[in-house]
């Protein structure tokens, strides 16, 4: 008795559900289309409006009920894929810009660090030459030394401290090589 009841009820319920879903699918498709258009247009609201109406017309032209939903799902899938790719590209670009900023900071920090190291070295040499007296302030200045240090790095075999003691901050002193030739 129970089995007969199931055999009668299940097909009726299933057919009702399928029928209801078929009637529901065009409505669902129309709900999906504006969302798909918004995703597709990547934030451009005017384009989204145009596409929403155009795609709604396409869905209207598609024959059948379930096929309308199928077409809307395809639009939604394509738009989601496009949006995700755009987001990924944007994030990737931001990451690259951030990385290049970080690297440039590291490089400039290293240059400054080597400049200050040369500054200390020069001060030590000056102290030893003046028998412990502090050298005159215009001979050792970080502002002058930083460009000098860069120049010294570029020149290769020169003595940095020799280059630092030419005093005048406005002029770049002649580079003196390590064996004493100017």
């Amino acid at each position, binding site marked *: 008795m129970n089995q007969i009841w199931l055999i009668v009820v299940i097909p009726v319920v299933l057919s009702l559900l399928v029928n209801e879903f078929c009637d529901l699918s065009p409505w669902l498709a129309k709900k999906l289309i504006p969302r798909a258009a918004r995703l597709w247009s990547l934030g451009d609201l005017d384009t989204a409006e145009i596409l929403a109406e*155009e795609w709604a*017309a*396409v869905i209207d032209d598609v024959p059948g009920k379930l096929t309308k939903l199928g077409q809307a799902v395809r639009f939604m899938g394509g738009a989601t894929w496009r949006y995700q790719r755009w987001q990924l590209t944007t994030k990737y670009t931001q990451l690259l810009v951030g990385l290049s900023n970080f690297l440039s900071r590291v490089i400039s920090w290293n240059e400054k660090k080597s400049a200050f190291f040369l500054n200390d070295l020069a001060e030590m040499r000056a102290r030893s030459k003046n028998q412990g007296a502090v050298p005159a302030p215009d001979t050792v200045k970080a502002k002058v030394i930083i460009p000098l240090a860069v120049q010294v790095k570029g020149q290769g075999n020169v003595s940095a401290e020799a280059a630092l003691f030419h005093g005048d901050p406005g002029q770049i002193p002649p580079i003196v090589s390590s064996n004493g030739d100017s």
Partner: protein
Amino acid sequence: MTRQPERITAPFLDVVQAFLDAGDDELHGWAIISTTGRAGPTVYKILERLTDMGWVTARWDDRPAEPNKPRRRYYRLTGEAVPSARALIAERRTPQTRATLRPAFGGGLA
């Protein structure tokens, strides 16, 4: 002023072919989708490219809007683009070969 396509794919050729087959007629979205057999997003991506290249112009359906019926948008190949489109199809489209299950003795083509 029309530009040449940078990337030519099979769906791109299908859409261009559909426009050439339509002649002077305008095509709406579903007509292109059903003619080419390509997915909606694929067709619309190509339509965007063709519009950017200046090959295709679009206009809204000028019939009075019916209530609850969205307007269609019609596309047409511009006169300037027709020679380029024909040349492209002639260059890229080889004559269709049909796949067969029959064994191809002696090199295949009779």
